[in-house]
Every structure is written in structure tokens, then in C-alpha cells.
């Protein structure tokens, strides 16, 4: 499929182009179109969720930034934004610290009950959010833990599997002879860790942290159950907005969040390349 051979028959040619530009093109369109559509819609001068005639004629009057202004001046949205940035970094910190340590432990050659431990540690990613959130809601009410910290703990535990997976992935390619070399030159295990191992796994740790951050930043079910109007986050505000009175400000927020995703994606890609370069693999 990679390239059409010169001897291809007409039928093969037709199929080749239909597949590549017809079928795959349509699926790519399906994947990306919803995300692209809301970007221009967020600049709609009207409070509609569809393109107005003026927008289609590219008339500047059809466009405005009023939904963005609303986002930056509305106290509800500002509170949500502030809460999101208060909760996510704390959850990321906890998840990354615990997760990195555990990943290093798990990649040792002899770990008793490795499979069972791994299954438990990854389970927050697998168990449906509604069940995790319900369980936490029941349990945290029982032990009287509410508000900010209950959400931080919930988000931290939901983010740890991502940290473990990414850090373990960088450790898999880790050359053990490097630590042995360091040891043979007289470095203590701690010095070896900070001078040799740490610089090599740092890209994995950072991408794990990014995953944990986005998990918390995007999470809504746990916030819905554990939080209140005081601890509402951006997804909380979007969710209630979508469920009750849908306002076009949501599209402005969505566009901003797409920008954040693109930024994160770029950082991750750069990290991946750096990590591969450090480990002596040519970037692909």
C-alpha cells in the first residue's frame, strides 16, 4: 500500500485512491472536524451555536471575541479556572512523586508479587470513573474528608497509573551497565541515581507528570461527586453548562483548552525525541 507499483491495474489504482483519499480521508475528517469546527464558532458574534450568514461571508461583523471576554470577566468561570489551577498541580505533584518511586521499584529485576502489585497500581485507570467516584464519595463522607483535599487525593490516585506507565517505559530501555559503571568508579547508589539514572528518566517523569496534570485538569466525575460550588473546576463548570443552559462561552473555553492540548502534545513529542536521543536511538 505504501506506494502504488507501476504495474498496478486500473482496478488496483481505483481502490488505492479510494482507500487513501476517500475512506481514510473521511475518517480523518470525522476525527478532526469536531475540534476544528468549534474554533471559528467560538468567535461568533451571535449567541448561536451554528454559523451565521455573516460568518459564512467572512464579514468581520460576524465575528467577535465577546465570548472570550465573558470567560475572562465572569466570576463563575474565573473561580473554576482558579480552582483547576489549584487542584491540578497538587495532584500532579503527588502522583508524580509516588508514581516515579514505584516505577523505579517495579523495574528492579526481582520484585515479589510484581504482577499483582502492578494490577492494583494500574486499576485506577481501568475501573470506571463512576465507580471510583462513587466509592470515594461514600468513603470520604464516612471519614469526613471533603472539599479541596478530597479532590486532590482523588485526582492524584487517578493520575498515578499514567506516571507509572510512562516512567516504566523509559526504564525499560535503560542500560544497566551505566549504573554498574558508575558504581565501579566509586559512586554511591544515591549519587548514581541523581547523576546517571535521573537525567535519563527525566523525560519519562515529565511526560508522566503531564499526563497526570491533564487527567486532573480534564476530570469531571470525581469533582461532581466530591466537590461543591466552591470547589468547582473548569470541566465542572462546562459540564453543568452543557447540561443546563448551554452558553457560547463554553466554546471559547473549549478553544482555549484545545490550545492547551496542542501545547502539551508538542512538549510531549519534544520530550520523546530528547529521550530517544539520550538513549542513543535515532528519533523517528
Amino acid at each position, binding site marked *: 500500500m*505504501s506506494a502504488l507499483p507501476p504495474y498496478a491495474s486500473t482496478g488496483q489504482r481505483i481502490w488505492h485512491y479510494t482507500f487513501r483519499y476517500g*475512506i481514510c480521508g473521511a475518517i*480523518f475528517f*470525522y*476525527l*478532526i472536524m*469536531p*475540534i476544528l*469546527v*468549534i474554533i471559528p464558532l467560538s468567535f461568533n458574534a451571535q449567541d*448561536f*451555536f*451554528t*454559523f451565521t450568514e455573516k460568518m459564512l461571508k467572512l464579514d468581520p461583523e460576524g465575528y467577535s471575541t465577546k465570548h472570550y471576554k465573558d470567560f475572562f470577566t465572569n466570576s463563575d468561570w474565573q473561580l473554576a479556572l482558579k480552582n483547576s489551577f489549584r487542584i491540578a498541580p497538587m495532584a500532579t505533584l503527588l502522583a508524580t512523586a*509516588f*508514581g516515579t*518511586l*514505584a516505577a*523505579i*521499584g*517495579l523495574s*528492579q529485576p*526481582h*520484585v515479589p508479587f510484581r504482577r499483582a502489585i*502492578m*494490577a492494583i*497500581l*494500574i*486499576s485506577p485507570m*481501568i*475501573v*470506571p*470513573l*463512576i465507580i*471510583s467516584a*462513587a*466509592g*470515594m*464519595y*461514600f*468513603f470520604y463522607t*464516612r471519614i469526613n474528608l471533603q472539599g479541596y483535599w478530597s479532590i486532590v487525593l*482523588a485526582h*492524584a*490516585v487517578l493520575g*498515578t497509573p499514567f506516571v507509572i*506507565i510512562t516512567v*516504566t517505559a523509559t526504564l525499560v530501555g535503560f542500560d544497566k551497565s551505566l549504573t554498574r559503571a558508575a558504581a565501579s568508579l566509586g559512586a554511591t547508589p544515591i549519587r548514581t541515581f541523581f547523576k546517571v539514572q535521573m537525567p535519563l528518566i527525566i523525560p519519562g517523569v515529565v511526560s508522566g507528570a503531564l499526563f497526570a496534570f491533564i487527567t486532573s*485538569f480534564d476530570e*469531571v466525575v470525581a469533582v*461532581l*461527586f466530591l466537590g461543591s460550588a466552591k470547589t468547582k473546576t473548569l*470541566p465542572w463548570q462546562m*459540564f453543568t453548562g*452543557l*447540561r443546563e443552559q448551554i452558553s457560547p462561552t463554553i*466554546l471559547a473555553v473549549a478553544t482555549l*483548552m*484545545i490550545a492547551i492540548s496542542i501545547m502539551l*502534545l508538542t512538549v510531549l513529542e519534544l520530550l520523546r525525541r530528547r529521550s530517544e536521543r539520550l538513549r542513543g536511538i535515532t528519533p523517528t
Partner: protein
Amino acid sequence: MASDLTTHDGQPLHKSLAKALRREKLRALVLIAPLLLFVLITFVSPIADMLFRSVENSIVPKTLPGTTRTLQSWDALGEELPGEEVYASLADDMMLAQELKIHTRLGSRLNYDQPGIASVFRKSGRQVKKIDSSAHLDGFIQSNEIWTKPESWANLRKNGLWPGAFPASSTAWSNWVRFMKSDEGDDVDLSEKTPSGLAYSALYFDLQKLSDEQWRQLTDSDNETTRAMFNGLREASAQFPAANYKEQFLDMHDGWGKLDNWRTLHRLSPPIVDSYYWASVDRERTSDGVVHKPENERIYVKLFVRTILMSALITLMCILLGYPIAYLLATLPTRTSNLLMILVLLPFWTSLLVRTSAWKVLLQQQGVINNILVWLGVVGDDGRLALINNMTGTVITMTHILLPFMILPLFSVMKTISPSYVRAAKSMGASDWTSFRRVYFPNTIPGIGAGSILVFILSIGYYITPELVGGTKGVFISNRIAYHISSSLNWGLAAALGSILLVAVLILYWAYDRIVGIDNVKLG
């Protein structure tokens, strides 16, 4: 021999090695321990708590301690209402419950299993204060004046037979103490008071059950007060005026004369019950055993089936749409495929709510898709398609959201398939279709399996997206769980439904671990 080898400090080598291995294991565990503890406390124990809540029923025996005990000897399968003793303990329990204002909560709990019983409790709560409990009290006082004095009860409670031989009286006594503390404050002095008439009724019923031996112990007691209290009481109590608690309750509310209400109470007396699980599968326990609920109340089995079918449909859609894309990405030159990969990863990285709101905007009746269709003349302005708030909306949106989870594992499997396999097949005369069907496709099955399980697991537990685009017809079991947690407050049923869903997911998780291995999960 190996065992003769020693290290430089004189230790046998095998011992030294074993020690090093042990130390290594310990170090690994020490590194893992913080996270393991963290996950156990913040994640596993909440889930264990939920499992426990799905069978927990302590509210009934705690709110009605006397009634649940006396009901044990009632024949729930018979056609007779419980006896006077049960109604007497009910009066006693209700007196305390309405004082603590917990009788309505109990009513709502019982209402899940017996619709209508909540109002019985609510209405009786107000009237139970007026209940006349003087019958037995008068009898005791007539038999001996000492029963009006506080020391009679103090003496009784010091007796060796208390509380074993006086189960009803001891419950009534502690109910009365709690009542007084709630009514008059925690520091109320009870040493100068005798309990209410309800406690005397409880005592009366306990006395009826004392054996000859126990009576002899009381009447021949070394304690003078005890002898005075009980001498002649046995004969006198036979002449006590009859209690009429039952009649009073029946006057209060005719619900107390309904056998079904009593059977429900009897069935829900134990602290651990399975009723929520039967409710989760549209069944209930009655006097005829476990039976189906009436046709119009059966919703959960249908909802479970719908969740599974729709998840299967979404998984199938993901295979159909994900396969060509993964194939294209795996066969294109790296530079181009990396570029196209962004189109897969961008939706993957975009907030779930952003994608859901995008679809909500696109699929609305006045939304972009319908507008384009009307403009193209495919549908008339009055024939706009209903694409949202139904199953269509859920399937379109969820397929979009879960598609990357199918493409990524498929892609990594297809990357490893050498192109020479297909070339070899073709060189031996296979057509394009045959070489795909017989050679390429079988090699991709592990990827399809991995992607399908992942998509299916994620799909059956989805809540946010069906809630926003599913309307009433396109929602999953998760939405029902959320409804019971936040709206109907039937937490037990929510926990039972959640536990069933959890078991399903864990089975799939186990299968995924066996087939793919959780170590091999990759993120982009």
C-alpha cells in the same frame, strides 16, 4: 562444590547471594510501598466501602432494635399479623426514632423495597407520642408499689439475669435512656426517674418467657428488694389488663395491618441483606421466594443489556474506522505517518468535555450538520434529523472519543508486521484480497483484541458523554448509578449496580492482562 565457595569475608557464597537478593527485593518493595499504600487507602478502600454498602442494612436493626428482635419469632409466611409483643416494641422503638427524627430516613430506606411504607412511618411518627402505654404499668403498680420507685429498675439492672433473660426490657431501657438524653440534654439525671410505660410493657413480655428456674432465682433472691419486686408477680401478671398496642397502631395507620409491610420489615431485619442485588436484576424477595418485579418496573436488566450492546456497537465502529487508519499509518513512510498521527493524537489529547460539547453543537436540531443537510436539500427544514439525545448521539460521540484507543494498539501491532509476508503471498499468486484475508489480517488480530477490550472496558463505564448527548434512550448503567447517588439517594442500590459493573470490568481487565499484559499499555 559450590557450597564450599566463600566470599572474601568468609560467608558461603550461596548465603551471601541469597542475602543480596533479599536486600534487592526489599529495596524494590520499599520503593513501591508508598504508592501502594496511597492507592490502597485512597482508591481500594473506597471501592471496598462501596461493595460493603451494597449489602449493608444496619439502619433497620439500629433504628428498630426491639422490633427487629421480636419479629424474629413471627411466622412471616403465615397469614397472621404479628402479636401484641411486636407492636409494643414497635411503639417503643418509634418513640425514640421520632424523638431523634430518624424514622423518616428508615421509612425511605424501606420504601425502596416496599413502596408506600415511607408514608406509614412518616404519619405514625407524629402520632406515636400519643400512644397509651399505661396498661402494663398499672398492673405492675397494683402488684407492688415498689415498681413506682426508681430503685426497682436500678435493682433489676444489677440482677445476674439482666440483660440475658430480659432482652426486651434492656432494649427498652437503653431506648428510654437515649430518649431522655435527647429530650433533656446529655447530663439529665435518671437516677430519680422510672422509665416510661413502654419499658414496663417490654418487661411484662420478658416475664412471660422466664422459665420456672429463673422465676425461682428471682423470688428466692438474697436481695430483699428483688424478692419484694417479684414475689407474687407471676400470678399477678396473669391478671394484668390486656395491652392494646396493635389496635392503637391500626388506628394510627392501616399500613400497620398490611402483611406485606410486616414481611418487608421482617426480611430487612438483618444487618446484612441481599435485597439491593435482587433489585439490580429487577427481582425482589417476597413470601413466595425471589420473583420478577412487575413488567413496568423492570429497568435494570434492560439497561445492563443496552450498556453491553451499545458498548459492543461502539467497539465495532471503532474497529471499522480504526483499522483503515492504523493500516494507513503503519504503511506510509514515517515522515508522513508521523504527520497524520497528529490528527489521531490531537483528539486523544483534547479534553473530553471539549469533544463532547463539539458534538453537542454539531448534532443539535439547529446545529451545523442539520443546517448543512437542509442547505444541501437532503432533508427538508421540517424533517431535521434527531441526531442527539438518543442512541445515535451516544454512538457517534463515543466512537469519536474512543477511536484513538483502538488506533494506537492496532498501529503498534501493524508496525511489526513485515511487508514481505504480503509480498510473499502475492508472489505465490494470491490476489490482493486473498493476501489480505489469509496473511495480513490474521497477523493483526492481537491488535484488534487489545484495542477492542480497551475500548469496551472504557465504554461500558462511561458516564459524562451519555449523560450529555444520550437523552433518555442513549444512557448507560453508569448514568443510573449517578442518578441513585445524587438524586434518589438510594446509595445501596447505586452500590449494588456499581459492584455488578465493577465485576464485569474486572473480568475484562483480567482478560486484557492475560492477552496483552498491563505492562504493555502504551500512551501515544
